[in-house]
């Protein structure tokens, strides 16, 4: 399944500056795995040593935080949009 991934500025050094990239994947985990094969070092940038998502990075599937879904195991559909967004807030 093909979907669009929105890449935040700090990670565009890995994607040759591309703001969005297309990947084939069935789950969020596969999105990260496939991005890592395409752009070596990608997974290490968003995940810690144990493979969990870093504390200050959020992943949204069609606008919903994947932590409200099934985290990295969340299935993705054809045409979905994944956004990788740094965690920032402050009312």
């Amino acid at each position: 399944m093909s979907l669009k991934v929105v890449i935040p500025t700090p990670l565009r050094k890995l994607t040759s500056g591309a703001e969005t990239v297309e990947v084939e994947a069935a789950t969020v985990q596969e999105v990260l795995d496939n991005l890592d094969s395409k752009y070596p070092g990608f997974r290490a940038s968003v995940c810690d040593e144990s493979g969990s998502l870093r504390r200050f990075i959020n992943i949204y599937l069609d606008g919903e935080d994947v932590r409200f879904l099934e985290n990295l195991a969340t299935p993705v559909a054809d045409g979905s949009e994944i956004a990788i967004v740094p965690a920032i807030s402050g009312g």
Partner: protein
Amino acid sequence: MSFVKGLKCRECGREYPVKLLAGCEDCFGPLEADYHYEAIAKVLKRDVIASRPKSIWKYRELLPIESEPQIGLGTGGTPLLRADRLGRKLGIDNLYLKNDAVNCPTLSFKDRVTAVAINKALEFKLEAVGCASTGNLANSVAAIAAAAGLPSFIFIPHDLEKTKVIGTQIYGTRLIAVKGNYDAVNRLCIQIVDRYPWGFVNVNLRPFYAEGSKTIAYEVAEQLGWHAPDAIVVPMAGGAMISKIHKGFKELQRLGLTSETERTRLYGAQAAGCNPIIDAVKRGSRDIRPVKPNTIAKSLAIGNPADGYFAARLIPESGGWAEDCTDQEIVGGIHLLAETEGVFTETAGGVTVAVAQKLVQQGRIKQTDLTVLAITGNGLKTLDALDMAPPQVIEPKLAAFEEVFGGAYHVA
């Protein structure tokens, strides 16, 4: 002259020069300003501070601006009120209110952070500023940007209180209401900042902006005669303010302005309908589980608090605790504060008062603790949360008055 050494990642420690940056480029952790404290200690003495006019800029060596502040000069310096009548109700002998309900220019603590951020935007010569906001920050950025002559773009959840909407639009800002909760608004803003050359105070100006909250600690300590309180109760949304208040008290000790032995226990307060930080503290964890907010305390309705991790770590480390309260208890807290101390606070202040009451009941705050409640916003902004019976209407005749209120003279 600036005493800022640079920016430092709170997660991995990577250092950066002063620049417009949302987070660490390696680990995405939040950045914060680091200072030349030895140099500051030589110039920032108690008598120097006492000689300056009341505002956050009394402590300007500890704020991350390079030159003299240009805007927000009247911000801060709010009263620290002794609250004996409320104290008797709560069971605290030594109770104080830090009353940011009368902060300038927009009646909430947010003016402190915004004043720092907009001065920084002027230093960076940015062409526009903006923010994602639950309301108070919207008011503050719109006002201070207007006074600085900077265009602003302000993003809010679509269901915000009318008073906070009008209280933003009045300044001639570009106000954009977004379908979704604050977390959705904020995510959009992070993506906008990625594309447009603007300064969003809570995104790419955040390392500077957040430092403004430290001034609450500085002022409280100075107003207590250079003592740190035993306990402070602070409302939490994103979790930034409580950790900056902690940083502020630590800095005063480091500079020798307060005693090294005084420790302030941090108590965090949230509404039960949006309590991800309370939940983490009670689980003994720093791992924040995001929630979908559902509370009248809209200014605290951040379900995915970016600084929640730090708050959940610092609160237990300080010896404090975290507690939440229902919407009904929030309204009760607003009434109690108004009726005992004559201070009308917004829903966030109601959260602080209601949680303080619980913490005393639980024995976590002791009767003898010198306790400060951070009252961070003004009640006139959240009238929607209150449902008061209309006043009795009478004819303009003495007989009509006496018929209804004849016994009023004898009211104690």
